[in-house]
């Protein structure tokens, strides 16, 4: 084990952090921060696996013989690229060109013969950050919705789901997944719900938001009804895509990333609300993931203003759009904090005390620690506990350990006062 001895005494040297550094050493300072979280129930609603590091395990689980063969045919190529996947390897700039090594790769050694390597890597992060439960999403597959071949999205999405629940989740009951829906294939989505709802570790379903699909199309109504029936939430997980025609106008990854991650969810949320889907599926719990929060009050006010003048275009609505949005759930990362007055107003607008769910996004470059919440000066102690885990416990029906204090947060109708 490479874990560094940080015991007091004479000076000892610490290593420079690189791709082979143990996650526990990268996050050693987070361990110090997490001590104050000992009696908090902390649920991380959005962390990530790196499925391409185990790509053959994923593609082994493709049903279709021909598509599986297509994927396997890449394994003999130099560098063994992840066959069938529509990523642009030469434009993976998230690590800021070598500046953020844990984003570039987690190449640390892990023991063999025990839990899956991905499980171990995730456990190390959880334990370092003081996280009790962690929901893991894919990473390169977040852009799979842009794949020109819908049948490939269905094949890879289903295979990923199997890999996740067969290899990653079983070794640690603290881990959970929100199943990938191949959204370019509405019937395929329904089959995924049938196959995976109720499986151990499955606590919801995910649409990767980076795609051009109208979420209000009639093709999806059976899917939403099925998910509503399961009682599990539906998440729209944001992502980026520099190939988008609008994004082609920007020349820096910074700009593209900042806009992309809100852009796709802005469109999907607007379509969701204005077409009255909250009225049609009132029991379906909606979660908007990894877009930060600053976009939400903008959407609330913008849609309210237009709705009041053009109500005839949204006849299914019985209330202002913002009132539906306020009943949705949002994950916190990447939390905008450069102007805390705006952050506070945002929390008030979305009713964060009951609707906000902490997310780390580990191991990605813009990850948030629980301290992103605990250090907010305008939050009450109860609000911090709600956001860090008790809201998630309520939504996902998670058991809160007795030593984690307090009861689950009240539902929105009886909101905890900030």
């Amino acid at each position, binding site marked *: 084990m490479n874990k560094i001895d940080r015991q007091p005494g004479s*000076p000892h040297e610490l290593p420079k952090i690189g791709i082979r550094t143990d996650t526990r050493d990268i996050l050693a*300072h987070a361990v110090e921060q997490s001590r104050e979280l000992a009696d908090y129930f902390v649920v991380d609603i959005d962390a990530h696996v790196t499925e391409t590091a185990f790509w053959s395990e994923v593609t082994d689980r493709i049903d279709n013989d021909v598509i599986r063969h297509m994927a396997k045919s890449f394994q003999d190529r130099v560098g063994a690229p992840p066959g069938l996947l529509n990523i642009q390897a030469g434009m993976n700039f998230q690590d800021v060109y070598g*500046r953020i090594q844990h984003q570039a790769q987690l190449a640390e050694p892990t023991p063999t013969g025990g839990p899956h390597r991905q499980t171990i890597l995730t456990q190390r992060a959880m334990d370092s950050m003081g996280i009790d439960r962690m929901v893991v999403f894919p990473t390169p597959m977040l852009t799979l919705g842009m794949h020109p071949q819908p049948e490939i999205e269905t094949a890879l999405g289903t295979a990923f789901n199997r890999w996740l629940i067969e290899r990653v989740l079983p070794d640690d009951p603290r881990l959970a997944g929100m199943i990938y829906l191949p959204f370019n294939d509405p019937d395929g989505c329904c089959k995924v719900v049938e196959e995976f709802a109720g499986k151990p570790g499955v606590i919801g379903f995910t649409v990767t938001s980076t795609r051009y699909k109208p979420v209000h199309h009639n093709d999806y109504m059976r899917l939403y009804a099925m998910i509503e029936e399961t009682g599990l939430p539906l998440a729209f997980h944001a992502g980026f895509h520099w190939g988008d025609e609008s994004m082609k106008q920007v020349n820096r990854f910074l700009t593209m990333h900042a806009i992309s991650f809100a852009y796709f969810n802005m469109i999907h949320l607007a379509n969701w609300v204005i077409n009255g889907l909250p009225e049609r599926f009132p029991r379906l719990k909606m979660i908007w993931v990894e877009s930060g929060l600053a976009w939400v009050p903008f959407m609330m006010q913008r849609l309210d203003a237009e709705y009041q003048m053009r109500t005839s275009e949204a006849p299914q609505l019985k209330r202002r759009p913002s009132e539906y949005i306020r009943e949705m759930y949002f994950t916190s990362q990447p939390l905008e904090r450069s102007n805390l007055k705006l952050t506070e107003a945002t929390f008030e607008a979305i009713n964060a005390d009951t609707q906000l769910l902490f997310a780390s996004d580990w191991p990605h470059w813009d990850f948030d620690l629980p301290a992103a919440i605990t250090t907010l000066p305008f939050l009450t102690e109860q609000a911090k506990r709600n956001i860090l885990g008790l809201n998630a416990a309520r939504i996902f029906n998670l058991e809160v350990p007795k030593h984690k204090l307090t009861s689950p947060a009240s539902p929105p109708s009886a909101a905890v006062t900030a």
Partner: protein
Amino acid sequence: MSEIFLGQTSDFAEGDYRIFAVDGVEVGVFRVDGDLLAWRNHCPHFGGPVCQGRVFNRVSETVTAERTTDGLCFAGERHVICPWHGFEFDLRTGRHPGDPRYRLQKIELSVRDDQVFVRLP
């Protein structure tokens, strides 16, 4: 405050840096153009191990008299990059190049008879 011996000056190569932990304080010692500089290994952003990150030259962009850009280039200043989130700090000033609210905590360093000492807070 206690003074801690970290090594001989020859133990700190030009352009390189070393990070030490002693009694709960972590210090990065950097050799920049012959000078030895010490900063606390604690990023003012979220407490990351900033001195354990990589060191890059500052990236600059030259703007011509016609207000056009000649593109990106490396400038002379050396920056240490926090490995958690990429916050950059000038190794001579400890300052973030774009946000003065963020700066590293300086650690007092002295050299006597080619021996390097830091005084811990």
